[in-house]
């Protein structure tokens, strides 16, 4: 991902009110990690599993933070239990910032990622989790605002899947 896109992504998260991010690093969007870490307005929490990335972010949301989880799309599978229980059943909004590996718009797609990518959107749909696919920086700021507003309105997780330009 180009540096300018990484900076716009992080600034857009802040502008949308995000102030707490749990994460497991991945490859496509990893340039945002030092930006998140060095920003005094953001609390960045490293975790050991996407399952707890979701539960910790949900706890922070209940405590008054506007929380996001940054993960690879494999983390959607790992965290599906907490997304459904704490996210959907309890009704806690969390923004999911997802590196969408292995999907058709992933510019680094290969056999290694394709199966994971093929099932990501059907799994989100199966769980009833709303999502938006972002392939370029056009209106990035507005899309992130929309996603945070949507998560809060639905009281549920909302996934942003980053591919295309974001995966170069």
């Amino acid at each position, binding site marked *: 991902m180009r540096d300018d896109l990484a900076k716009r992504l992080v600034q857009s998260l802040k502008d949308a009110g995000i102030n707490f991010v749990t994460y497991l690093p991945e490859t496509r969007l990893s340039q945002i990690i030092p930006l998140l870490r060095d920003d005094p307005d953001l609390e960045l*929490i490293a975790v050991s599993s996407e*399952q707890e990335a979701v*539960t910790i972010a949900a706890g*922070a949301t*209940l*405590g008054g933070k506007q*929380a996001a989880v940054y993960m690879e799309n494999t983390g959607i599978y790992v965290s599906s239990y*907490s997304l459904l*229980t704490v996210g959907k059943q309890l009704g*806690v909004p969390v923004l999911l910032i997802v590196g969408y590996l292995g999907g058709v718009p992933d510019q680094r797609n290969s056999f290694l990622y394709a199966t994971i990518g093929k099932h990501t959107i059907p799994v989100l749909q199966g769980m009833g989790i709303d999502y938006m696919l972002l392939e370029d920086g056009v209106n990035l700021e507005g899309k992130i605002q929309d996603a945070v507003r949507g998560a809060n309105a639905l009281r549920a997780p909302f996934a942003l899947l980053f591919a295309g330009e974001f995966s170069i």
Partner: protein
Amino acid sequence: MIRYECLELLAGRMTDQLVVTSQSGQRIEWAHLSRHEGNLLVGMMGCAVGVATGLALALPHRKVIALDSDGSVLLSLFNLATLGNLRPKNLVVYVFDNGVYSGSRISYPTATSGNTNLEAVARGAGIVNAHTIRDIADFKQKGIDALAQNELAFFVCKVEESLLHREIPRPDTDLAENKYTFVRYLERTEEKSIPFVGRG
């Protein structure tokens, strides 16, 4: 030692702490003992410690308590590694370890009935203040005293299997209702708005 007598002691010490419960009989017993608005009765195995950690990080000036079970902690052992590195000073975790999946109705043994020692796992994960409590006197001393300390504490409370929770009424609020009571309580006591809560 039985879980209910530990919870009775804890309930008597509640002021403005936030209490997150996992799925197990302790959720029912705690709801029976405490009507505190700062109770969040999370009814899912493996989620309470994570939610409590998030609350503790978001509200570092509030004491947060997680009430959990051996089966639930075993389902989310990664929590211990994360806690061992974050070490939130305002979090106390009580794991009521009866060595069985009592919800299974056949009391199938958990790994702690075998070779697994949760205190050792917690210490190995970096939680320095991890202890095993085996009797009520020790719970009163170490377990209750931790509420006044400013340090992450992790207690493995070895309890007998008790089916008392099947004899007392279940909570009369559903999860969503309890969540809103909890966040409204936080809004009042923290004097701030929780962003996602509706304004009508």
